[in-house]
């Protein structure tokens, strides 16, 4: 072939290859010589197949469409003036016309892109600078993209380390743990058992927490409540205040719990068994 040098990977897909062939052979798209086009097309696809079997998949479907049209054209047509007869090429032609339109638009958009990228935006935003100097959070015009990406990032991310106030080299004792739990319950009234055990808790920390809870339960300081037989364990203060806090309360930053000082949380190596024993 004269244009053997044509790079096969320049074709965006089967439609692109068709349009290339139509232009190359100056084919009138409203009267396509299907046999010739199919032949040409198959020749290219064979070459693509040799190079990249996976990519060829997209092109094979179109090849079978072309062959199907070709065979339908060969069928006897009945009367010449048959009004019900529909040109089997029609659907393909419509697709080609539509695709050519979009190629045209893409070309126009390329020119827009060229022009737009030649016009530089202001590189430094004084407005943003002021925002930051006034310690305002950056803000964005959020689209669904940002929303779903934000959610996706959160889901991909490992659960954040539980809010733990780390105190280096602090010893863990059940008494200390009990004090921490008491402080927490003073603020929150009830707390999830799981929340008392950050993900990175050492075994010793878990054991000490359990012992502290058992002791507190024995002294009737706390109650343990379970939502359903396999539900979460809640640890609650013995004397519950009436529930039903007003909205403002719910939004009170102090009721957060995340800032609460958890006291005894610690790294494994800092745990002093002896103190516990």
């Amino acid at each position: 072939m004269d244009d053997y040098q044509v790079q096969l990977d320049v074709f965006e897909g089967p439609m692109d290859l068709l349009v290339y062939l139509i232009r190359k052979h100056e084919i009138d798209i409203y009267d396509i010589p299907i046999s010739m086009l199919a032949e040409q097309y198959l020749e290219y696809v064979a070459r693509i197949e040799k190079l990249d079997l996976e990519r060829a998949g997209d092109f094979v479907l179109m090849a079978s469409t072309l062959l199907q049209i070709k065979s339908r054209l060969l069928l006897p047509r009945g009367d010449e003036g048959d009004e019900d007869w529909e040109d089997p090429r029609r659907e393909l032609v419509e697709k080609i016309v539509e695709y050519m339109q979009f190629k045209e638009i893409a070309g126009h958009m390329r020119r827009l892109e060229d022009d737009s990228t030649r016009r530089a935006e202001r590189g430094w935003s004084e407005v943003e600078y002021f925002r930051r100097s006034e310690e305002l959070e950056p803000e964005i015009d959020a689209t669904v993209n940002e929303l779903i990406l934000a959610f996706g990032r959160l889901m991909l991310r490992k659960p954040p380390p539980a809010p733990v106030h780390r105190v280096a080299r602090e010893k863990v004792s059940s008494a200390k743990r009990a004090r921490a739990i008491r402080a927490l319950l003073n603020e929150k009234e009830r707390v999830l058992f799981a929340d008392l055990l950050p993900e990175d808790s050492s075994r010793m920390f878990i054991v000490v927490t359990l012992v502290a809870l058992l002791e507190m339960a024995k002294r009737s300081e706390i109650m343990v409540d379970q939502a359903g037989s396999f539900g979460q364990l809640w640890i609650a203060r013995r004397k519950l205040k009436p529930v039903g806090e007003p909205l403002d309360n719910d939004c009170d930053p102090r009721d957060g719990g995340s800032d609460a000082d958890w006291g005894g949380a610690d790294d494994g190596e800092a745990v002093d068994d002896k103190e516990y024993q």
Partner: protein
Amino acid sequence: MSGYDNMTVVEAMLFASSEPVAALRLAELAGMEQEEVHTAVAGLNEHYQSSARAFRIMKISGGYQYRTVPELAEYVRGLGRQSGSHKLSPAALETLAIVAYRQPISRAEVEKIRGVNPVGVLKSLLEKKLVTIRGRAQVLGRPLLYGTTPDFLRYFGLSDLESLPRESELEVLLSEQEAHGSALSAAESEGTQQELV
């Protein structure tokens, strides 16, 4: 309040922003009518034109934004945040064209037109914030629908979607084709065009 005229106030606000700012927002902050903002912008551009300044105020993505004149492109390349060298691939451009004209559109419909699975390209366009998810089609499987974003307009320097070429401008291509001699009636080929709003 500062004794500065409308033009200078609008100039300060727009010059200090790197993004397009809506006339409504400018008007609110400056205590003007939107009409006055438009007038101020026109006055500023006239001044920049006559004094051969390096920038103009353009209508971009529903707002106003300063941009340098294209003739100075070689000097500003690589200085700002947009490097200007990363152009979209042909596949990305074709897909964007289809999304822009047929939005909201599903992945399958894009694939039907291009004959290639556009998943990779769509994802990359989502990442670049040039397209976004617009909802779901009311058809079997309720596929996600895609549309263009304000950043799409900003990237191509368009004030709105209507500034893309109209149907009538696209017909040029078709009439060239039809000149070859048409087996299909004009009415039929128009059918495909009319979807290109």
